[in-house]
């Protein structure tokens, strides 16, 4: 009964959003001039968008691999549906909020259904820009998935995705990336979205994981945590590599044009990721006695997140340093969030995306070099370590604080509303049976005999 209502409500929301545009459709198409440069830019941005799209698979493989077999189908469906819902919602409203006509530096207010034929995207066809942005919105939304894995209700997750891609994320995007956005105007720099995508997703993840509560059995009565090992390490490894691959679209694609700078950006990206993984591996080797596999993967991702803001502004060596620091941060953050904050984040999403999203944004204020920004055709600004003083650092911090505040408030409201309506947490019995059964009546691996788990929960 209640379930039927939820379904109907979701369907209604969806159809409502869906119905309106049908009328406006006819005029919703862009006409773009053809030229060789435009074509090259289009090809480049489209391929970058495809790579970023594919990151979805990376996200849900990482999540699925680092959690238990009984919840993996749920992880897969979440991963597919957050992109699908996100694409529709962002096309319909998110894009307008993000890049529509600016209202007070806070939000865009025109161009619903991507109805922006006249707008200027630096010569890039509207739809190439839109697709790239859709893929980004999907990435921002899906970060949540890993942090609330193995216990969030599927219906609540779907609604959360709609709200993140439809409102929470586009507003931040407007602030920082849209001309007229108040942080954009103040000169905050976030080249490919350490803040816009990763901090936003990471703070949603923190709030979500905190409000949904830990998985049943994660913490003992004395608040000490239990380890809940992931069920498929190769799956997590492939997820990591797909994400890394996608980052070659994410960062260099954010140029939105095919300039030689994309090579520089791809290199800073590579070095930061490599340094992050190497540092995380050696750190766990020293701390835990053996090199830890899944933390090394997290290290690579932390490096990638951290270099995302600065990839076009910093030198190769700085990139390696930024990535290396990210590798340190992620290891300590995972411990801190679990043991001090008592928040259960099965895949380390908060540590990777929120912590290193912030670190990466701040790092621009430290490592940016005006000469490099100029060479790459982006803002020519220097950070604290390269003679630029604290000016840029201040702008970066302002941006971080504002975004964290906005996301914390809105996502708390979101999860609070969800809790009071459809509910957000699968109950203990449901978690014991696994979300695959409870939420989808499906077994992910019916042909393999499960092992006897320690806690008597299979």
């Amino acid at each position, binding site marked *: 009964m209640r379930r039927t209502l939820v379904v109907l409500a979701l369907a209604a929301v969806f159809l409502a959003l869906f119905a309106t545009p049908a009328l406006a459709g006819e005029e919703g198409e862009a006409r773009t001039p053809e030229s060789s440069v435009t074509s090259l830019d289009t090809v480049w941005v489209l391929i970058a968008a495809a790579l970023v799209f594919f990151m979805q698979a990376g996200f849900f493989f990482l999540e699925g691999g680092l959690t238990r077999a009984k919840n993996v189908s749920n992880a897969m469906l979440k991963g597919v549906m957050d992109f699908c819902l996100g694409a529709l919602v962002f096309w319909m409203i998110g894009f307008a909020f993000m890049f529509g006509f600016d209202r007070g530096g806070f939000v865009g207010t025109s161009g619903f259904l991507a109805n922006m034929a006249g707008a200027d995207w630096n010569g890039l066809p509207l739809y190439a820009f839109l697709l790239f942005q859709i893929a980004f919105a999907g990435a921002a939304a899906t970060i949540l998935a890993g942090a609330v894995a193995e216990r969030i209700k599927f219906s609540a997750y779907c609604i959360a995705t709609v709200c993140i891609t439809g409102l929470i994320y586009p507003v931040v995007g407007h602030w920082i990336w849209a001309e007229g956005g108040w942080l954009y105007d103040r000169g905050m720099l976030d080249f490919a979205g350490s803040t816009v995508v990763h901090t936003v997703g990471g703070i949603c993840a923190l709030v979500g994981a905190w409000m949904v509560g830990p998985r049943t059995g994660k913490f003992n009565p004395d608040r000490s945590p239990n380890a809940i090992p992931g069920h498929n390490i190769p799956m997590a490894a492939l997820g990591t590599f797909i994400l890394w691959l996608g980052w070659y679209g994410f960062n260099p694609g954010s140029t939105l044009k095919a300039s030689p700078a994309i090579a520089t950006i791809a290199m800073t990206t590579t070095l930061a990721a490599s340094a992050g993984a190497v540092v995380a591996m050696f750190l766990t080797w020293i701390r835990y006695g053996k090199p830890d596999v899944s933390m090394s993967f997290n290290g690579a991702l932390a490096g990638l997140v951290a270099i995302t803001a600065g990839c076009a502004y910093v030198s190769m060596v700085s990139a390696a340093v930024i990535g290396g620091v990210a590798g340190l941060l992620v290891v300590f953050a995972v411990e801190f969030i679990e043991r001090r904050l008592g928040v259960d984040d099965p895949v380390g999403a908060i540590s990777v995306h929120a912590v290193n999203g912030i670190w990466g944004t701040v790092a621009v204020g430290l490592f940016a070099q005006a000469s490099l920004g100029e060479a790459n055709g982006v803002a020519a600004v220097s950070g604290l370590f390269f003679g630029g003083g604290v000016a840029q650092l201040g702008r970066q911090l302002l941006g971080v604080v504002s975004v964290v505040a906005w996301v914390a408030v809105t996502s708390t409201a979101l999860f609070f509303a969800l809790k009071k309506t459809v509910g957000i947490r699968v109950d203990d019995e449901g978690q014991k049976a696994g979300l695959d059964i409870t939420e989808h009546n*499906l077994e992910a691996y019916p042909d393999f005999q499960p*092992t006897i788990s320690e806690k008597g929960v*299979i």
Partner: protein
Amino acid sequence: MKKVEALIRPERLEPVMEELRKLGYPGVTITEVKGHGKQKGVTHMWRGAEYRVEFLPKLKVEAVVLSEDVGRVVNALIRAARTGSIGDGKIFVYDVADAVRIRTGEAGFNAI
């Protein structure tokens, strides 16, 4: 010596182990089995088609204990494994002719 063999719900393993430990019988062997009894199977769904899983996962917990302890062990197991609904499982008791500890070669009740 007797072997007490309990077929329990997987999620009751922890309390069962707890009780056995209390009675001084930490030594057990556990097997993943599938059971069928009064309990109806569950219905799963595959692409819109329902199907029954007739055999449900159970754990078989085997503990060889001294004959005089059988009653206490059985009662403890019932206490720990019972939920009151169908499918709680059964306990069977068997005679054990002999027991040997491989490491030492000790036989009989020293081996338990």
